[in-house]
């Protein structure tokens, strides 16, 4: 089966929704890999001695790479159906407003950790999940709106 036909989902989704799937996949895979690595490290190394900077940078780079590839596949599958319209805008606006609320709540954790002057390791590893969680929830919310709800 050709790659293009595997991803030929024109009937099911708009190009914007496919881009959301690509973004969600990138965040899910790379964040999952990072948290898996971090969990493994925490089992035998004290938190303060873990160097998470390099793995975190690779995670971000990997996320950008997978997202870019995913968008490429999505655009290829879309072929000439690359329109976006007012419904995409309405769904995006609705999801963005909810994501802002979610991030405001979860970002309070690293803020409080910073105020408490805990180790940078914990602040970093509280902030990164806040971004990841908000991204995954945002993708899920958009897909849900595309499939079920009146987005007006």
């Amino acid at each position: 089966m050709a790659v293009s036909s595997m991803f030929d989902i024109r009937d099911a989704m708009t190009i914007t929704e496919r881009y959301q799937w690509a973004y969600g996949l990138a965040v899910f895979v790379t964040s999952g890999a990072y948290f898996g690595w971090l969990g493994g490290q925490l089992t035998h190394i004290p938190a303060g001695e873990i160097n998470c900077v390099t793995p975190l940078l690779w995670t971000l780079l990997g996320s950008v790479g997978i997202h870019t590839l995913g968008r490429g596949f999505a655009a290829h599958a879309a072929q000439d159906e690359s329109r976006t319209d007012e419904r995409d805008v309405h769904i995006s606006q609705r999801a963005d407003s909810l994501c802002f609320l979610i991030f405001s709540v979860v970002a309070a954790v690293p803020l409080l950790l910073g105020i408490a002057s805990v180790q940078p390791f914990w602040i970093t590893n509280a902030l990164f999940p806040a971004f990841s969680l908000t991204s995954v929830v945002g993708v899920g919310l958009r897909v849900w709106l595309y499939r079920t709800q009146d987005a007006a």
Partner: protein
Amino acid sequence: MKHKPTRVTNRIRVLRAEHGDMTQAELAARLDVTRQTIIAIEQGRYSPSLEMAFQIARVFKLPLDEVFQYGAAHAG
């Protein structure tokens, strides 16, 4: 999957059939929107903007209220 219907109903599916079996894709192309948006409007999952509603009515050469209806049960 359970859909939340809007209060606005429409006759787009019938009107497409009456206009030479116009496809959803053809209507979408004339309005410069996605076919998924036409599907969502026809299924009552999405209420288009007033501007798009006028554009749809113009495609079928009908007044707006012959294409879209606001349910009597919800009238004001």
